[in-house]
């Protein structure tokens, strides 16, 4: 599959799972997109470790030092899977996978070249030495435990936005 086709399929499937999806090219567009998505008056946790995170971090006037105290987490994630519209979060490099779990809004930045075609491709890449925690995230937290009626935002984020760069 071409890079563009793979990226498009990924965002299509992510949207089907109720994620907000955004495609940008370059840092400038990324920052503009973040400006539209993130509520600037709420505390934002951004690790500021990767290049894209470093570029994004100064954008937020209220920074939360701890993700537990944040309303929003903005982070670059390990990768994504086109087949299922899934983002992939891992614990390597001292990254806290829970940062994308506790705040009510999770904004995940994905680099286009980090999108895998299928689940098989992803697991072939990580199965040799999996990280302590590898979490596949598809859409926001949900339940249907009451009369099988879909309710969004149980214990995890009620809003997931994905920005494909």
């Amino acid at each position, binding site marked *: 599959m071409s890079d563009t086709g793979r990226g498009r399929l990924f965002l299509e499937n992510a949207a*089907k799972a109720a994620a907000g999806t955004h495609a940008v090219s370059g840092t400038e567009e990324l920052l503009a997109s973040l400006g539209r998505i993130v509520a600037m008056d709420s505390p934002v946790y951004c690790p500021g470790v990767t290049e894209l995170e470093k570029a994004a971090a100064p954008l937020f006037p209220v920074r939360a030092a701890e993700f537990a105290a944040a309303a929003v987490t903005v982070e670059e994630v390990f990768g994504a899977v086109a087949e*299922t519209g899934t983002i992939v979060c891992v614990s390597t490099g001292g990254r806290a996978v829970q940062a994308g779990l506790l705040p009510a809004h999770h904004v995940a930045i994905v680099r286009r070249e980090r999108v895998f075609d299928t689940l098989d491709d992803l697991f072939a890449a990580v*199965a040799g030495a999996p990280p302590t925690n590898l979490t596949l995230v*598809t859409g926001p*937290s*949900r339940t249907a435990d009451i009369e099988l009626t879909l309710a969004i935002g149980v*214990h995890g984020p009620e809003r997931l936005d994905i920005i494909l760069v």
Partner: protein
Amino acid sequence: MSHEQTSLAFRKNTVRALEDSALRAAMKQATDTFGTKRADAFAPVADLEALRDRASAIRDDVLANLPMYVDRFVASATRAGAVVHRAEDAAAARETIRGILADRGARRIVKGKSMVSEEVDLNSHLEAAGMEVVETDLGEYIIQLEGETPSHIIVPAIHKNRRQVGRLFADRLGVPYSDDPQVLTKIARKALREKFLSADAGISGANFAATDTGSIVLLTNEGNGRMVTSVPPLHVAILSVEKMLPSLADLPAFLRLLPRSATGQTITSYVSVITGPRTPGEATGAKELHIVLLDNGRTEILAGESRDILKCIRCGACMNVCPVYRSVGGHAYGWTYPGPMGMILTTLLTGMRNSHPLVDASTLCGACVEVCPVRVPLVDLILGLRRRKVCEGFAGRGERRGMAVFGRAAASPGLFALAQRLAGAFWPLARSLGGKDVAGRMPAPAKTPLRRRMP
């Protein structure tokens, strides 16, 4: 509780369940919805049969080499830094977990959904030891507040409607009454968030265990599974030995089958693959990871003629299509696992003496076999258990005599025709003597028998 917690009461429980109109309405609505969602989810999967074959073959391989795979998992998980405990039976599992928690002074425990923990009755044991155990899956939270047990392995509170949940939350949590699932969900989120952040330990189950990497895999939607396994400093996972997958690379086939079969989702919101505890320099995961591998009769099942039930990956699709389960719900079965897979597993795990009425809980229609993603031959297994029931002397005298008479008549066309005529003639009498039970449940014999209507 309206149902007796023993499978010996199955008949009595079914009669009571059939009279409970709220239960029947909830079951019908839920299982119909499941059926539609499952069909929609599988529709775009091009080579579904090949996928089922592949998953079935992987599960066959696991069972054929189970001791080897379990040893390999123990070695891999240990290498990754987890502490693995083998538990022979339910009592050993309970005591092992209580010991782990007590040794570390853990008092406040948050728990993710785990049917194996229900099987060993873990909560009451920990509560008796003075620990606070909070179920955090919304469905489990609801039934824990109500003091009930799950009635479905995927949707534990499937038997309750939104008004019952609303009243329960108002009574027990002191919140204003609402019957809006979105509002009720937010109430649970708030109540449980505090529990997660202050917990000393988390207990989870696992859907799969990969033997090459020592990873445990959890499929969840709410995020409570992620909380339980990564927020408290101590994580204890309990799983039964047959949950092995040879390799983490085998997981995608099951990720495609399990959520579609269970809830009609392409994939669950979250799939957590946990390999060992947090290592120095890491910021994710419990500092200590203990994995309790439960046998509780599996090794014995593996050696017998019902071994294929251990292929089951607990999706619940068989119960959603079962005409018996759909009518009576999960509590009537009297133990942890209901529906077709449940009646088989219950009989094997608790013994024929404690569960023999359950082997009748099937019409042998085969709907379960059609939907099983890993091709468990459920009908063959049920027939095998029925043979065992008769051979072991648990069939009633009436049933044995009746079957003997039927056997002779069915072997002789003349005798069969005579019996049919007699049945027709004596029907009004049987109806008046048997009362509502017979008249309500048994159809009257046809005026013209089927064999005479066939060309």
